[in-house]
């Protein structure tokens, strides 16, 4: 069952359309990551869902109840939507202690006093902040404030929590830890989480499904993280997910030719899925880790231009038909197979390439 359903929603500020007729459903109990570059409208989407801004078209329903619908003149105020929100800047109230912050939603929902205390302390224990109950937020670090915000969202709603770029302000180690804990909470409590971020790596580690949005506020792809990683829907999604190499190709039936700046090389050994619907000018997309440098004289010819040692791996700039591409190789692997020197001729093999129309 979908806990949140958005149908054809449009959000605009004056004449500026931020989200154009977007539809999506969030399943009960899942973690859905909404990923996109900054200013792609993902925060606007969250604010529309929470009732902080009005939508100009479409409907939003939570648990089969319409909460936003300009056509039906419905706009349920934020306080009646029962969504726990963790804001980008935490929004922990600085004039209240940690426990007062967490008790506030329970007080507003008229939970009986003893039960409220019990639930608040339980939530605090869940985010491992029990020792800090009487502190003021100014006495906490960013990561600790984050946990308080999370605990407050948890007591505010045990069904649906929205996190808006919650851990981007933390350092890498804390980020990893928090991502793991959010995942853990979701699995033990069964709460539905909508996770908004521009960081596709964290999104992949914690989400059941993810949505890739583009700068125009449209959904480009929706699916499980591994599906999206393995089969990006188009060139932009491919680029967004990580460092990418693109080489121009020309197609003649089933035969592919790599177009170099000075020469052309046939790509006989390459197995990629090509649909007949594609045009003749194509791009070969590959990730640096998915390219192998071989010692044989067959295959695609390339020159190693630069070799950089990064510790756990080697980073190469390789020239193929006049185009420079990036290749990465695991260090142990490189030492076993022989590290190339700069200027050396090698051939390259693509392990998991994708083909897109130019």
């Amino acid at each position, binding site marked *: 069952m979908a806990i949140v359903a958005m149908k054809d929603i449009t959000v605009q500020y004056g004449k500026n359309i931020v989200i154009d007729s977007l539809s999506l459903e969030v399943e009960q109990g899942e973690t859905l990551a909404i990923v996109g570059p900054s200013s792609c409208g993902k925060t606007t989407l969250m604010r529309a869902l*929470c009732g*902080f801004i*009005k939508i100009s078209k479409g409907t939003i329903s939570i648990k089969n109840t319409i909460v936003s619908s300009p056509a039906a003149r419905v706009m349920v105020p*934020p306080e009646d939507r029962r969504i726990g929100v963790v*804001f980008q*800047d935490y929004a922990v*109230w600085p004039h209240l202690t940690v426990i007062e912050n967490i008790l506030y939603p329970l007080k*507003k929902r008229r939970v009986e006093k003893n039960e409220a205390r019990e639930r608040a302390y339980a939530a605090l224990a869940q985010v491992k902040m029990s020792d800090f109950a009487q502190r003021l937020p100014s006495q906490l670090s960013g990561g600790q404030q984050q946990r308080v915000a999370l605990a407050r969202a948890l007591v505010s709603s045990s069904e649906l929590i929205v996190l808006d770029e919650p851990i981007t302000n933390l350092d890498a180690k804390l980020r990893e830890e928090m991502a793991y804990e959010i995942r853990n909470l979701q699995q033990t409590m069964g709460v539905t989480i909508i996770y908004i971020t521009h960081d596709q790596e964290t999104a992949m580690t914690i989400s059941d499904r993810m949505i890739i949005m583009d700068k125009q506020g449209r959904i480009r792809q929706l699916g499980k993280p591994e599906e999206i990683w393995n089969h990006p829907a188009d060139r932009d999604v491919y680029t967004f997910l990580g460092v990418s190499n693109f080489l121009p190709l020309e197609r003649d039936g089933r035969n592919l030719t790599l177009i170099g700046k000075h020469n052309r090389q046939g790509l006989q050994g390459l197995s990629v899925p090509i649909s007949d619907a594609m045009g003749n000018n194509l791009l070969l997309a590959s990730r640096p880790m998915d390219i192998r440098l071989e010692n044989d004289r067959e295959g695609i010819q390339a020159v190693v231009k630069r070799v950089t040692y990064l510790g756990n791996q080697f980073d190469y700039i390789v020239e193929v038909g006049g185009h420079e591409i990036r290749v990465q190789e695991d260090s142990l692997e490189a030492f076993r197979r022989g590290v190339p020197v700069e200027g050396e001729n090698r051939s390259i093999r693509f392990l998991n390439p994708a083909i897109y129309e130019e």
Partner: protein
Amino acid sequence: MKYFLTHLFKRERTMGDRKFGLDQGLFLLSLVILVVTVLLPVLMIVIRTFFKGTQLDWHLFTQVIMAPENLSSIINTVRIAFFVTLFGTILGLFYAWLIGRSDIPLKGVMKALFTIPYMFPPFFGAMAWSLMLAPRSGYVNKLFMQITGSTSPLLNINTIGGIVFVETCYYFPFVFLQVVSALERMDPTLEESARIAGAGQWYVIRKITLPLVLPAIAAGAMLILISSLSHFGVPAILGFSNNIFTLPTKIYQLINRSAGSFQGIREGAALSILLVVVVVAALYLQRLVLKTGHYDIIKGKSMRPMLIKLRGAKIPLLTISLLSLVVIVVVPLFMILIVGFLKAYGLPLSLKNLTLRNYQYILGQSKMVRDSIVNSLFLSVSSGVITMFLGVMIAYVVIKVRPKGKGFLEILSLLPYSIPGIVLAIGVILVWSGAFKVNLYNTIWIILIAYIARYVSFAMKSASASLEQVHYSLEEAARSCGATHLQSLRDITLPLIRPGMIAGFFLIFLPAMRELTTSVLLYGPFTRTLGVAIYAINSEGNTVQASALATVAIAIIVVGNLALRFITKDRKGL
């Protein structure tokens, strides 16, 4: 108008879907209050000047402008303002450079002394200097004539020069404070790199430091200019006896002489327009100057600048600056204090001539004085509370609600900044003495309304500053936790801006406590304020009692300032 209103509400609503929610209510309420208290008085002045009934009538305006006595008061106003600005800027710059860039000792003491002129109304200074340098009776002049046997006084304070001197003493901190803070925020490497490149000390000051702090100097100088143009107290106390009039004192004289007749008020209104034109011209000038000088090199964070070694000049400069500070700040205060204990004005300042009788009289016997203290306390507290809440409401609408028409609201709330107090008072008289079926003339309420209009800009600025610190997500977090809009304001926003509100209250309470310019036109037989009472007793020639009452006012102001400092320092005590 209807079109305007319907368009006003076609904005993006951020919370709730009611056609007329809390936000719209606050907006409309702010708009109505500001239109009534601020805009209406200004409009009435224009209407009364240029219209006779419904007939357009330029005659009065040209007649008032062309009257030779009014012309001379215009010239006096501009002349005084020019020289006060010039000397105040030079003095302020000198001290700012000494404290901001040199290694002069006792900086803390000097900085503390500089804030004193800020606290007291300049007309106290005029009274004090009058005690010393009035041509016949001033203590210093008498001493001089005794010693030298001369029959002419050493200096005469009742001159244009005297007015310029006293105003300069009270207004130079505007430039000083602006420039010191700019110097403290300026990246010292800018100066150091010039020194390394081989430039001399004087060259660096001229070519690097001065151009960089120019915007701060201009801002401070314009504050002095505008304050001096619309200033009433000093020329009123020093100028009247010698027939020296400025625009504000001329307006006061016109209204006072006509004893509230309509023709007199109309003439006063016409002169007011002239005064506003002069002030607006000065503001426009400020805009121009500030636009050309914008430097990002001055950063927000404070840095430790390289201090210039004064070497041999250190002791002479320290002596000069301390001595001048004592003369400007300490001596006037001391004079008022000591004369307040004197049996009669003119007696030598010795122990056997001191008495507590003046205090007994003003605090015990004189009903007028007691009333004035009660009135001023009532007016300051009530205008402080009301205006502060009004300021919070307007700031909230402008910053958080952001309706269409917020610009108009903002302009209205900042308008009183550029309206001289005396002009505002005339506008308030025109609106509230029966023109709209309400007659509050001679009641305390008309003064309250004038104070609210006068101080709403302060309140709005101070509330804006603290509201901008409250990020919108704090309120939204409360909404998503189940709080209604009103509850989120009460539980989150208000507690967070409470320290700012208390500071804002004192920023209104303190100047209101010593207010003279507006109340001097609005007071009735039973509604004198503290400032008016001191001014009246002083003009009646009861100098010792006026000084005693001024001392009482000083005590109240000092206590208020200490309270303000205590509150703003201890920000944790939310």
